Structures are given as C-alpha cells and as structure tokens.
C-alpha cells in the first residue's frame, strides 16, 4: 500500500501573545512545529505501515525552512519526503494551495492520502477536501480512527457534533484526521541521526504540471481586503488582592449582574 501524508509547518499559535497597546500579534520567538492534526495523520500512516506494510511519502508545501518538519517525519519512520517549494506557489489561498498539492500528488502512487483536519495557523479545514475533489477521490473528514482490511477496504470512525459515524470506503481515498485520533510517537534516536542523511526531494513549479494561473496569488479566488486589530479593549478593572478579598469582589459583581441574590 502506498500512503501519502500531507503535512504543514506552522507557528505554534498557542504561544502567540498580543501586544497590549496595539492589539497586534507578537510572532517573534514563536517556535515552528509540525501541525498537530498532521502529526496524527503521520502516526496513523505509520501504524498501518507496521501492521500491513506500506510505503509512506510525506509532502509539504512551504518555504525552504519547512525542511525541518520533513526531517522530523523521517525520524518518525517515513520512507520518502518531498518539499514543494517555488515562488510561484507563494500567496496561495486554500484553493490555490490544493491545486499545487493535487498536482504533486498526481505524480505519485497512492492508495490512501492523509491530511490533518486543519492547520492551527489558519483553522480553515479546507485544503484536504479540496485536494480530494481535484483528484476525484472520495473523502472522509474529521477522522477519529480507522481500520483496514488488508485488501482495499477502510472502516472509519468519523467525529460529529452529536457523537460519531462509522463509514466504509475503498481505496483510493482521502481522509482528514483529528489530533485526538492517536498519540504520535516520538522520533527515535537512530531516526534523528539518520534523518539528516536522508534526501528531501525539492519539487518546483516545473515538477507538477499545473497551469501557472491556478497557483499562488494569481490562482487564489480569495484575497485579504484588509486586516485590522480589534484595538485594545477598554481596560477592565484589575485587582491584585488576597484570595478572600478577590472572592468578595466577584460576589459583589455577581450580585450587580443579578446572577445571585444580594
């Protein structure tokens, strides 16, 4: 079985803080990580590999620094890594991103494509299903778990607001996975050592056979019209007091708001 996992390098947005004066984000010093949902996608692929045998390719689209997450993937146990990078891909919205990734995927053999449900720096959850559409593949999103019959059939647990669904789909297909699906393994020590000896293939515009007008900023139907901060909100009252006094202040406020009787 051939599995391709799409991953993304993202800033660890839980570490981003706001400048209290301007309301803008302070991004300096924020570490880059493998997107958590994608990492679980990688783990799901590795579990299939060790149970049934599989060849795993990881692919990412991004700047040269994204090499780092591909090395991490090598250290976790993947077989091949591709960095899709070209100035022509820059400024892409989700549709243009999915065009580029789908173009690269068409060059590869796959029975299963795995993406994370969404990336923590954009939270759109769009690229996975858009890739599936370009490749005319069935999709299952919000995947919490999957089983494989060793032949062709996947039985998948899909999360919903009210619980879950069990669905069935045959390869080839695309799934988008949740980080709650599993606990990704750590990189092995040998893996880390070897990861830097492995080849990360660099693929550029010339490698993917997609019209230039479908890529990057040119290929993006959506644009940022303006961006703004909400401004610093009028500061509320801030108290640094003993716990007992703090409790009294809160109780007064709750009375004022008619939450409790006073």
């Amino acid at each position, binding site marked *: 079985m051939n599995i391709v996992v799409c991953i993304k390098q993202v800033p660890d947005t*839980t570490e981003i803080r706001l400048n209290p004066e301007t309301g803008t984000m302070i991004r300096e010093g924020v570490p880059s990580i493998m997107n958590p949902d994608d990492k679980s996608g990688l783990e799901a692929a590795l579990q299939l590999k060790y149970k049934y045998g599989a060849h795993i390719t990881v692919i990412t689209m991004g700047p040269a620094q994204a090499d780092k997450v591909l090395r991490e993937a090598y250290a976790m146990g993947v077989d091949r890594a591709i960095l899709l990078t070209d100035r022509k891909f820059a400024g892409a919205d989700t549709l243009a991103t999915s065009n580029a990734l789908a173009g690269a995927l068409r060059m590869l053999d796959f029975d299963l494509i795995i993406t994370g449900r969404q990336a923590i720096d954009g939270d759109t959850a769009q690229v996975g299903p858009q890739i599936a*559409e370009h490749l005319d593949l069935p999709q299952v999103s919000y995947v919490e778990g999957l089983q494989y019959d060793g032949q062709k059939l996947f039985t998948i647990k899909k999360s919903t607001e009210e*619980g879950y669904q069990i*669905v069935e*789909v045959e390869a080839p297909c695309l799934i988008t996975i949740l980080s709650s699906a599993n606990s990704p393994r750590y990189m092995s020590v040998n893996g880390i050592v070897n990861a830097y000896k492995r080849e990360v293939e660099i693929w550029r515009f010339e490698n993917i056979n997609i019209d230039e007008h479908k890529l990057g900023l040119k290929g993006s139907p959506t644009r940022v019209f303006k961006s*703004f901060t*909400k401004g610093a909100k009028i500061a509320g009252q801030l108290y640094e007091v003993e716990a007992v006094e703090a409790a009294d202040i809160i109780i007064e406020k709750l009375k004022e*708001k008619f939450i409790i009787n006073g």
Partner: protein
Amino acid sequence: MDKSQYKNIYVFVEQREGVIQNVALELLNKACELADKLNEEVYAVLLGYNIKDKAPLLIAHGAGTVLCVDSSELEQYNTEPYTQAITQILNDRKPSVVLIGATTIGRDLGPRLSARMRTGLTADCTGLDISRESALLMTRPAFGGNLMATIICKEHRPQISTVRPGVMLKGKEDPSRKGAVENVTINFDKSKFKVRILKTVKEEKNLIDITKARILVSGGRGVGSSEGFKMLDKFAKTIGAEVSSSRAMVDAGVITYDRQVGQTGKTVRPDVYFALGISGAIQHLAGMEESDYIIAINKDKYAPIFQVADLGIVGNVNQIIPLLIEKLKKGK
C-alpha cells in the same frame, strides 16, 4: 466571468434527522440583512428526505423561496450526494452568495463545493457585510499579525463562506411571512457515491450545548486537573452555570470537545463568562470575547486574557474558587 449574471443569496439549511439546525436560522437572518443591501432575495436550500414540512419554518425566518430537494439519497448528510445536489442548483441558478454553517457537515461540504465550482471559500467567518462595489466582505480571525482579516472573492462567483454556529443572531420567527416553495429534482451520478454510512451514533457527552448557557465557568491550564474541574463543576452548580474549557484541557483529555470554547471549539456569548486559569491564546479569545461580562482569574498579571476581561483578578484559581463556593453557600 460576467458577475452581473449572479444574483441572490442562498443559505444551505443543515438538518440532522429532519431537525433544522439553529445555524441555518441564524444564517437566514443574516442573509436577509445582506439581501436588503444588495436589493436581492434570500433562498433557503433544503436538502433531505421527507423534509418538505420544514419549509414554512424557513419562510418564517426570512427565506423568500425555499428550494427543496427531497430524496432518499439525501436522508443523511454524505459528501458526494450533497455536493452533487448543490452544484446542480448553483450552476442552474447562479447565486452571488452562498452561506453555509461551519459545522462538521458544513466544513466537509464547503471546500468540496468550492473546489468543484472553482470558486473561493472563506472559513469560519465572524462578520459578513456588503462593500460599496456590492462584494461580500467576509471577516474572520486571522493569524498574520493583525487579529482580524476581511476577505473578498473578487472575480469568482458564487462567493461562499462558512459561518460558525452562534456567531450570527437568529431573527424572530414570523409565521405571517409569505414565501414560495420550489421542488427541485437532481440527476444524481450514483457511480460516485463511494462512502457508505454504516451507522450514526449519538453520544451522551454531546447533550450539553454550551452556546446556550447564560453563564459559563471556563477552565484552562491553571485549573490543571480533573480534580480542579470537579471544583469548577461545584462552582458552576452554585450559580447555575455550565462548565466549559480552553483547548489545552480538551487536548489533555480532562474534558470533552463539545465543551471547548475557541476558534476550533465553540463561539459563545453568555451574559457572564468566567475565564479561570486561562491565559487567553488568541484562538480562545476569538471564541469568547463577545461575552457580555468577562471575569478572569489568572496568576500571570500579563496574561492576555486580562486585555478582554471586564473584571480581572491576579491570583490562584484553586484558592479563590473554593472560597467563593464557601461564601456563596453561606450566603444562601
């Protein structure tokens, strides 16, 4: 593309087991406001099986026309049949705007639809408006330096956006409103139906809808453990609140996802929101900053949560809350 051919606002009406979801009614209300500015009409797109009787509800909430596709293929949501049905409708009728709830269903359908229609899609919008050039202005939280971004889809139609449940306000139901119901027949290509739903399970964990709570007691890393959440439970019960949380606690397995507030969780706007031991990551703020009154307790004086709090207490949650519970009990 001749944009002038594209007219009217279409709302995808999400139903589960024949029950119209609130988000659809919220979107209809917003659609009416946008349609007024554009001088266009609002259409509700109702897909399902034996669901015709739901049309009057949609008209009462603002739909001028309900397009009803009643087919056994659409009984439960499944990506391909729903995408085929909506694609056919959009190609035949050419709306300028399509609004979809950003639920697990909408976030599965939206991107598939946008890729098939080769048009733009903006996810999880928190604000929608119309520009002077009659374009849809779609505002959402962003991570590019500024906290919010307004997105436009200039040269492609329809302009599609998903909107989180609870963000737009539902209008008043007005049974005297008049509207039309049109039945639409879809020519399905069943050879593409490849995902089979074996079963759909409802779990008890999801019976709580924190978006409906008037008071929320929300815990984060500073609360720490399931022990800490038991304390929050107790506090919530004393003041008639529901317990919710930040993502950190969901990831740690302390609390279930349905209680998560934030960009990837739920958007809430209760009368009073307690942010307890929550530092205030931007994703969390995006989900709660519209609350009427925010009370935050955090050890870190510089925690960003204090920037949105109306009442901030620098201190230890695990000391203050037990005291609060005690005092509230005495007061009764």
